[in-house]
């Protein structure tokens, strides 16, 4: 089974503020890492690879330095990688990004499964996976907790997903797209040795033109939605202090927990 894993390089820290005058984002650090839920997707890919023959190719779209995320993924066991980097694709919304990723997957080869993290730590839209599936005209299951593959039932995979307090087993025909929730498994760790080995694993770079997409279809230009402003939250992340007797505080705590659980 050949598996494509879609990853995103996100900032290590979400410590971002907005310049009150220019409204530009000011990041505390430029350090990037693989999006946490994507590590769970890579782990699922590795577990499937152990059961079936085939290769795991990791894809990302980003600036040239996103190569670091791909090398990190290959240090975890992914066999090959593909970086889509082009000024034209930068700043795209979920629709424009999904188009680019789908085109890259198609160009790279045939895959039985496309995996990814359910939500990114920065934008947290949770949309790109299903959009890629739509572009590739394949079914998708998002926010899964795991998958089970039975070789005797070829062409199918079963995903486990929590939905309305139920645990669903969902069978899906391959090829398919599945995204995984953060924390659904315990991702393996790279070692010094696998880190070194990852430096010489294959990395293919695609530009927009190589994917056969026109600049008007991708990036900011190809995005139906645009960010027009950014601002700081009304109240900064400073705790609202609650006062009262221990009994009152306990009741308040219960209300807060129940309200959040209900959402």
């Amino acid at each position: 089974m050949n598996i494509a894993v879609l990853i995103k390089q996100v900032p290590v820290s979400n410590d971002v503020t907005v310049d009150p005058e220019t409204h530009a984002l000011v990041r505390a650090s430029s350090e990037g890492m693989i999006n946490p839920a994507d590590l769970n997707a890579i782990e699922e890919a590795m577990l499937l690879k152990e059961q079936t023959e085939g290769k795991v190719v990791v894809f990302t779209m980003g600036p040239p330095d996103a190569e670091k995320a791909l090398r990190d993924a290959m240090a975890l066991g992914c066999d090959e990688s593909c970086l889509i980097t082009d000024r034209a694709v930068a700043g795209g919304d979920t629709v424009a990004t999904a188009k680019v990723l789908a085109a890259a997957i198609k160009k790279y080869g045939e895959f039985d499964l496309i995996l990814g993290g359910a939500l990114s730590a920065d934008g947290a839209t949770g949309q790109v996976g299903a959009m890629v599936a739509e572009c590739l005209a394949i079914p998708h299951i998002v926010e899964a907790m795991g998958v089970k593959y039975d070789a005797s039932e070829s062409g199918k995979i079963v995903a486990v997903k929590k939905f309305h307090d139920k645990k669903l087993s969902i069978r899906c025909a391959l090829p398919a797209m599945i995204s995984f929730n953060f924390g659904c498994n315990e991702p393996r760790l790279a070692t010094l040795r696998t880190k070194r080995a990852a430096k010489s694993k294959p990395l293919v770079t695609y530009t927009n033109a190589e994917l056969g997409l026109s600049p008007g279809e991708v990036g900011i230009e190809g995005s139906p939605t645009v960010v027009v402003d950014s601002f700081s939250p009304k109240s900064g992340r400073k705790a609202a202090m609650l006062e009262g007797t221990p009994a009152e505080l306990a009741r308040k705590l219960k209300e807060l927990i129940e309200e959040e659980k209900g959402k």
Partner: protein
Amino acid sequence: MAKKKIGIIGGGISGTALGYHLSLYDGEAEVIVFEKDTIGGASTAKSAGTVCLFDDSLKNRYWDVRLYGFESYLKMEAEEKGSAGFDKTGTLVVATNEEVEKVIKTGIALAKAAGYTGEYITDKDRIKEILPDISTDNILGAGYTADDGYFDGTMISNTYAKKFQKNGGIVKTGVKVTEVIVENKKVKGLKTDDGQEYEFDVVVDCTGPWSKFTGEMAGLDVPIWHTKAEAFFLCPPGKKLDYTFPVLKYPEFYGLRAGDNIFICKSHLSMDLSNPMHAGQWDPDKLPATGGTDDYFIDFLLDQLEAKVPGIVDSGLVSSWLSYRAEPKDFWPILGETPVEGYMLSTGYGGNGVIEAPAATRDLAKLIMRGESTPLLENWAFKRLL
């Protein structure tokens, strides 16, 4: 008698320890510590906190300073468990050549003189008993004591801050100093980003890696540069070791346990100071909380561990971080007076702030409160760099 007004910039180990020591001059000083973020949260948090009885890197030159630090923290821990974050794992210092061997033997003699245990072991089986994952090839022997280990710099800073507050000191966190007011080469006070202005008789810079920028506010060129301390947290094969991993010191790197994980950091001695990747002047505000290590560190550490501690070379890489050791080019701290009257420094400790802060700030407090110098203050004076 009017109280002496003292402002301390920086709430790391140096600033909080100084605040505490000043607060011991019962009611004679009015002290405020300004911390722009959280107490002990910046380079102090990245300190490994090894306050070992065998001082390999400084060649035992300031052994009394080290001992004072060690014993101060032992007492802190005894007073309230966990308040210094002491983990008594013992220390193993490995001799890879005769010069190192000599330094280790000196350390053992000094530790014994202070009433601690220590021995120099050449029996390789015994070394392997202490650290089963070590390779004893190409080593002469190792110094070992069971009496020490490592502390937690952030815990200690918070404990000092608490004691300081209990003695009447004021800690302002989340407040950034934006201006140091100097008139006629004399410090007058400072301004903060919440729009406040303070009058002080003495202002002390305890900002470590930031001292270059802090000094500029007082019109001083503080000759601090940074060397990189790169570190990895390793998850050992099998996830948990069945022995206590001691503080482990080689000339090139050191290691210690962090829960079930192992922390490995590049040592000072493995730094190539002429390489701009290793040493230079950087903006510590841009330093990420995690990550940031350069690729060469992987190769460096893989080669080191394969040769020296092969049993853990296939550990998982849990996380990494990079810290700046801030120091002048002679690697000694800068302590005491500057050409600006009333503006003092307690900075440039390199990687040794946790070790040296108790003795250094004890002496600095005495200078501030009584005008009396000490040999340590003289050795680490700013004027040596002018």
